[in-house]
């Protein structure tokens, strides 16, 4: 991070690096602040800290400053309730928190970021050795874990990127998420501008698209669905986009078609990455899933992706050092070239590797394993449905039944629930009976975590 920032600041010190609700900052300003913060961290002897900050400009300053000082930051979602944050930070052994929030002091050793950066710092040298950073998983499939990475390894994916000063990237992910970190690295490496609203709900992203001249967006399929639904309901004329990127979840065909129609000039990419494994592969042909030809085989020995027993396996050198709390290079770290299962269930159909959901999302209906995604895709494609979430609902009779929450296209208040039930029934008629939703509920909104739809079996 710090090396990329130094490069951008040397080439274009006066270029706007980031725009947030608090204002904007140039690359030169961010580097100067990062240097001050590095000096402050060293002065206070802080080598490891929790970072709780909503403003993306401050996040970049603090991440780059930490990398410069060789300190290990770990971001937490900035709008988490105080008592939860304290619990989460203690679980990872963080006693120092760098934050502008006032409600964490007392329980943790809270340091205001401006207190780290007074006066002149000179130009401290980049710390030798690893530049560690801890990234927590979103925990959509269980308790969040924390993966320790090295900035130098993370930055390999953006090595050699040419400057793209005309690009303005929306920060649709939280900067505490792995995908958010990827966007930060991409923007700094390409010396582009980051547009970072807060909150980062799809409606805020839509406003930024229209008002802040965003040209590129990377977001989850769930975020895109919400954004398109919001645009339809507000009759917003969508601006031209140059780049549309999807990641973090499977991208259904109907959503890809919708995005192509909404942004006809955009290059549509799907990225496959995880907090633990790093960036693995990307798909740019606009079709759902991965082409079978891109899988590892004798004729394609450099591929980092293969399928085994219906599950996607990956290998890569950009993965984590290990989970927080275990020694570097521990069992959880995949050695370079070592294959690991991802927990993503796939099916090969028509030359494509299609995602069917997570192993942890499988719904066991009386012994029949139901994958929520094919059900959700059929329901989401209905004209009367704006958004849908398929999940398991516990049942004393069958262990679980398939349930679906639906946000109707015209809102839950005026929708005809019986009509929607009939449409759902017809949409899933080709699936086995155990896959049919037995519980259909109309809702105003669908809960997400880290921009992803939460599935699995509810307690």
């Amino acid at each position, binding site marked *: 991070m710090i090396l990329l920032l130094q490069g951008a600041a040397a080439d274009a010190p006066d270029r706007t690096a980031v725009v947030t609700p608090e204002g904007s900052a140039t690359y030169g300003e961010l580097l100067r602040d990062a240097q001050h913060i590095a000096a402050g961290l060293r002065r206070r002897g802080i080598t490891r800290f929790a970072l709780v900050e909503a403003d993306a400009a401050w996040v970049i300053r603090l991440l780059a400053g930490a990398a410069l000082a060789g300190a290990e930051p770990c971001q937490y979602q900035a709008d988490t309730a105080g008592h939860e944050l304290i619990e989460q930070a203690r679980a990872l052994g963080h006693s120092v928190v760098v934050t502008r929030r006032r409600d964490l002091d007392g329980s943790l050793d809270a340091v205001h970021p401006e207190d780290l950066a007074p006066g002149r710092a000179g130009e401290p040298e980049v710390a030798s050795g690893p530049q560690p950073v801890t990234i927590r998983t979103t925990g959509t499939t269980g308790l969040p874990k924390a993966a320790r990475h090295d900035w130098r390894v993370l930055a390999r994916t953006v090595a050699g990127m040419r400057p793209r000063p005309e690009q303005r990237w929306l920060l649709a992910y939280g900067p505490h998420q792995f995908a958010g970190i990827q966007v930060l690295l991409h923007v700094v490496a390409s010396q582009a501008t980051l547009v970072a609203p807060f909150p980062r709900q799809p409606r805020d992203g839509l406003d930024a698209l229209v008002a802040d001249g965003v040209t590129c967006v990377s977001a989850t399929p769930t975020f895109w669905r919400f954004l398109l639904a919001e645009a339809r309901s507000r009759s917003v004329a969508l601006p031209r986009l140059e780049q549309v990127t999807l990641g973090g979840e499977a991208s259904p065909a109907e959503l890809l078609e919708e995005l192509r129609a909404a942004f006809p000039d955009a290059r549509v990419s799907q990225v496959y990455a995880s907090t633990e494994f790093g960036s693995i592969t990307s798909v740019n042909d606009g079709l759902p899933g991965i082409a079978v030809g891109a899988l590892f085989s004798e004729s394609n020995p450099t591929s980092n992706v293969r399928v085994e027993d219906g599950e996607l396996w990956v290998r890569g050198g950009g993965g984590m050092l290990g989970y927080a709390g275990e020694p570097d290079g521990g069992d959880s770290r995949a050695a370079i070239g070592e294959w690991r299962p991802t927990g993503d269930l796939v099916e090969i159909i028509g030359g494509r590797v299609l995602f069917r959901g997570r192993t942890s999302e499988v719904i066991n209906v*009386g012994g029949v394993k139901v994958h929520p995604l094919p059900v959700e895709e059929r329901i989401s494609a209905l004209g009367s449905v704006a958004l849908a979430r398929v999940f398991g609902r516990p*049942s*004393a009779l*069958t262990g679980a*039944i398939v*349930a679906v929450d639906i946000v109707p296209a015209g809102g839950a208040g005026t929708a005809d629930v019986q009509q929607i039930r009939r449409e759902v029934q017809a949409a899933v008629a080709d699936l086995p009976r*155990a896959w049919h939703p*037995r*519980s259909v*509920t109309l809702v105003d909104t669908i809960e997400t975590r880290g921009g992803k739809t939460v599935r699995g079996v509810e307690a």
Partner: protein
Amino acid sequence: MATDQDTARAVIAEFLQRADKGAEGWGDETGLWGDGLGLDSLEAAELSAMLEDEFGSDPFSAGSDLPERVGDIVAFYAAVTTE
């Protein structure tokens, strides 16, 4: 004013209509399984969920013997009401 038992019968009627099992020709003595309504486990689980949505509890999940007749379901809510 509708009682809980009336509401339970209305939920069962709605379920039978949804499941294409006909909304008429059944009563409290009608069996739930086999030659009665002929529910299978998935249909019973659906009815169980509908009753739970309406009342917060249902006789299929109560931990005792499964209901055998429509009247057992209706009686469950009578028992709940008077407890």
